[in-house]
């Protein structure tokens, strides 16, 4: 059983939202046996396009709660991510970060074949909560996969947020491009033990570096009108009675 999916399931339960109203477009290939018991609609999309696919789902049926799962450290889908943030599209983006960062845990060494990490090993990775925050996300958080309770709470909270929420989960999870055996099996424990919870920290300061402890926690929690809200507000203002507001909270 995939730990993140278990926590996700808990999160949905806590949020009080019907699983049948949750749609999950994902570019991470979770198997059917993993997601079936969740009771959500699951779409395994092509790499990097989970966010725009989710945008379509949300705009096609505003009653849905759409939770794109993205892997690949925002490589292919980086643009969709920043633009969804700008629009404040009502999505909960769960970014499963399984990067193989050199020096963390002593493994893998700099000579690890570069193809096995989503970035070449000498490149600095994105600070995803910071990027999300600076693009306008209303909720950002980072947890390791072992912070199960905190993560579940975050998911529940974010599911009830109006706007783009981002939760980064550090986990050597399933991914095309990682040779699992290359990573020490206790890497996830390493992440957990080397993390420090700093809720409310400015995500700017939550860069993951080899030297410092990994900062986890809930970083952003603010309010901004969502895409559909501003759409309805602007068009009602201009068109008046001719315009029927789109969707609304109850679809």
């Amino acid at each position, binding site marked *: 059983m995939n730990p993140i999916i278990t926590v996700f399931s808990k999160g949905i339960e806590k949020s009080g939202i019907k699983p049948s109203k949750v749609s999950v477009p994902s570019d991470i290939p979770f198997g059917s046996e993993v997601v079936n018991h969740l009771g959500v609609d699951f779409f395994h999309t092509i790499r990097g396009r989970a966010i725009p696919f989710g945008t379509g789902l949300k705009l096609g049926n505003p009653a849905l709660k759409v939770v794109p799962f993205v892997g690949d450290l925002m490589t292919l889908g980086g643009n969709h991510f920043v633009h969804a943030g700008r629009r404040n599209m009502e999505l909960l983006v769960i970014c499963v970060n399984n990067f193989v960062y050199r020096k963390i845990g002593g493994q893998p060494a700099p000579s690890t074949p570069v193809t096995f990490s989503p970035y070449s090993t000498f490149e*600095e990775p994105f600070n995803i909560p910071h990027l999300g925050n600076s693009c306008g996300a209303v909720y950002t958080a980072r947890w390791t996969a072992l912070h199960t309770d905190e993560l579940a709470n975050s998911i529940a909270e974010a599911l009830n947020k109006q706007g783009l929420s981002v939760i980064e989960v550090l986990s050597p999870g399933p991914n095309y491009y990682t040779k699992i055996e290359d990573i020490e099996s206790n890497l996830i424990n390493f992440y957990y033990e080397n993390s420090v919870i700093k809720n409310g920290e400015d995500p700017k300061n939550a860069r993951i570096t080899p030297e410092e402890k990994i900062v986890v926690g809930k970083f952003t929690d603010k309010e901004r009108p969502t895409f559909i809200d*501003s759409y309805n507000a*602007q068009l009602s203002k201009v068109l008046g009675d001719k315009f029927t507001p789109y969707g609304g909270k109850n679809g």
Partner: protein
Amino acid sequence: MSPLKTIDSKIVHPMDNLLRMERIPHIWCPSCGIGLAVTAFTAALEKAKIDLNKVAIVSGIGCTGRVAGYTKLDSFHTTHGRPIAFGTGIKIGNPEIKVVVFSGDGDLIAIGGNHFIHAARRNIDMLVVCVNNFIYAMTGGQVAPTTPLAAYATTSPYGCVEPPFNIPYLADSSGAVYVARWTTLHIRRLTNSITEALNKRGFSVVEVISPCGMYYSRINKLGDGLDMMKFYHDNAEIRHGEDTKNLGIGFQTKIIVGKFVDRERPTYMDSYNKWLSEIKTEEKLRK
């Protein structure tokens, strides 16, 4: 027939050697600010005292995308949104070349947003000049990711509903080492900024706010180019070192300009070379 043909051919403008004069007149509309940005850029090229044979300019698609075609350097007019990626190839293929990406907001921030944030993260040694006219002008005035809220465009006929990007903030938070913003009114300061950025190692971004009299101003009834210049004059405020967070631009609100970020970070090639030497030492040790 080019109207310039009638002018006495002995008179040579000091910038003629930097422009492809055979292509003049250019395609830009009256009141457009791109020409001013090009003037600032060419002046900066001279001021920066760099070997012009070693400068490559790459543009994407759009009004600003045509800049490469008028600049007498090794110049590339590529596909929509991809000049940064194309430039990355040039830079890594031949690190001696100074790559300048000169393109518009739609090209660099909408379709090319991914390359923009990733090149900033990698800190590829290039200068990005982003001319921001708040609209897609080449295709006739569609909404752009920089169009201020409630401003009109042909694909937001009832007012723009999406908040715009704050380009300096995006660049800063992705890791750019030099970030500045000027309007086309601040021509000398803009020239100085580009000069400075040309000699900076790493991913530098200079945003140039430019009037678009034909589409943005016309659709939004903001007058002509001169009116926009007056607006910049009255509403632009220089605040060097301002936190990039506070640089958002609303519809006809104050525009904060200045140099905001100037820092040092190892460039992509620096990290690459360091990594390479580390591997080599490691291999030697193993032996």
